[in-house]
């Protein structure tokens, strides 16, 4: 992973991961998320990365004071957020599983 924002993953972005450069928590979050997504093997799931050190607009736009933070914006426009370096595997799996249910998608 590099420090650039990943905006090249297409228009069907489901998830946004807010990080702050190469801080240890950010690095861990990227790695943990990549592993989890790979395990799910759902090609409909796309991830966009926003580095707040490079682009602070995400703080105002999404109210992201804490990082790392994984966001999914529901169809209704309501966000659901999982803070942290995503090191708690069961919590991350629960979050990703909820994305696939019709109620929360």
């Amino acid at each position, binding site marked *: 992973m590099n420090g650039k924002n990943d905006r090249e993953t297409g228009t069907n972005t489901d998830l946004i991961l807010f990080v702050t450069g190469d801080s240890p928590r950010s690095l861990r*979050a990227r790695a943990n998320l990549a592993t989890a997504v790979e395990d799910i093997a759902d090609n409909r799931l796309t991830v966009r990365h926003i580095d707040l050190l490079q682009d602070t607009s995400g703080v105002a736009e999404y109210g992201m*004071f804490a*990082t790392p*933070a994984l966001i999914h914006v529901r169809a209704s426009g309501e966000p*659901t*957020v999982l803070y*942290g370096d995503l090191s708690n*595997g069961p919590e991350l799996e629960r*979050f990703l599983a909820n994305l696939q249910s019709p109620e929360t998608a």
Partner: protein
Amino acid sequence: MGKALTDSDAWALLDGRPPIDAAASGGFDLDGVLAMAEHRLEGLGGGWLILDGIDQLLSLEPDPRAALDQVRHLNDWCQARRITLLLTGKQTRSDGSQPLDLEGVEFMLSTVLVLATELVGRRLNRRFRVAKYRGSAHITDELPLVMDDAGLHLPYSAASEAARTAASQERIGMGILRLDRILGGGIYRGSTVLVSGAPGTAKTTLGVSFALAAADRGERVLYLTFDELDDRIVRNAASIGLRLQPAIDSGLLKIESRQAWNSLVEEHFITIHRWIDAFQPDCLVIDPVSALLKAASADSAYMTTERILDETRARGITTLLTSLIDTDKPQTETTLSHASTLADSWISLEYRIHGGERNRALSIVKSRGSAHSNQVRELLLSGSGVDLADVYEYGPKVLMGTARIEEEHEVAERHRRQYVERAQRQRDLERNIQQARLRMEEAQSEAERLTEVLERERQGNAETKHNAAEHRQDIQRRRAADGPTTGKDRGTE
């Protein structure tokens, strides 16, 4: 306040509230908001970073120590950039009914301000305390905090800022000549007078009289009434000849009404403080100050009264307080407001019932720095104003009202009779003296006459004696001429 913030370019508001269903998976930090803050505060050379309700976010941190580390990181980050950091967060209750997400945070910050709320008399009381202010002297007491349309106030901390006015030697009148006389010439300017009594004893009347006298001297008077509306005060005063309207129209008298029960004691204090600041009165009337007891407060209303008086004394404002007495202890004359110890002068009003009448009595309980009368007077209210009358002691009772008037008439009649009798006795004496003098003159004349008679008698006796002697000599001569002589030319008898 809100519009001023909205219109200002010097601040930015960001909504960083976590969604309701937000969760955490591992540790996180606040570097995102710091990046934003650095971007916005860049070039300002300082500024404020305010994170309101930071506990909401940090409560998601699974490790409490990591949450504290975030606060420390925030603090260090701001200090390095000369940015003032203000964090707000909830504190747990002593019973543990609320979670404490920032336990221990006070040890790492230089200043900790504790806000609390308490329901008193079903009214919300806000409290403020400086729990920590590293390197600075500060008040450690918990203080009331009031929030109103004008912002946040710490009423009692502001009260001590006024410079103290020196004690005055000038005496001023209270609008009742005889009352001023028995006070030794009036009350001292800048002093505090307490007028206590049961309902209806004319406390307000004395307050109005005091206010009117001050306005007549050209002084500014602020009259604060808790029991009555201002127009009723004006109307009722006019019924006893005290016309307030001209003083109001001239701008010298301002009457403000407040409902005691409708605000916290601290809110009353702030309002009074504001009115004093705005009107700059020479004299103040609070009628009655005991009404503050009806207002809810976690603090004592007595302390509020004391703080008000501290303020008026410091500013040199002559203050008259009226207060209800504690009817449960009428014999002690204790006031509900407990203001008697604070006042320089204390005028007690009471009812005296005698002969089927209820009359008002006035006495001076104390007047610091004055040789005042200790006599009870009757307070008279009439269409021509307020006055005092002497009372008559009748055995153990004090006569007032009709009994006093009857006694006055009896005394006057007694005095009249005594005068008439004395005048008659005087005239009798003068007549007797005149008669005596006449008798003396007659006696003198008689004495003179008798003296003359005596003199004549004496002269008559002398003449008789002389004549007798001459007669004897004549006889002897004649005898000698008729008989033989034994001598040369006379014979022996």
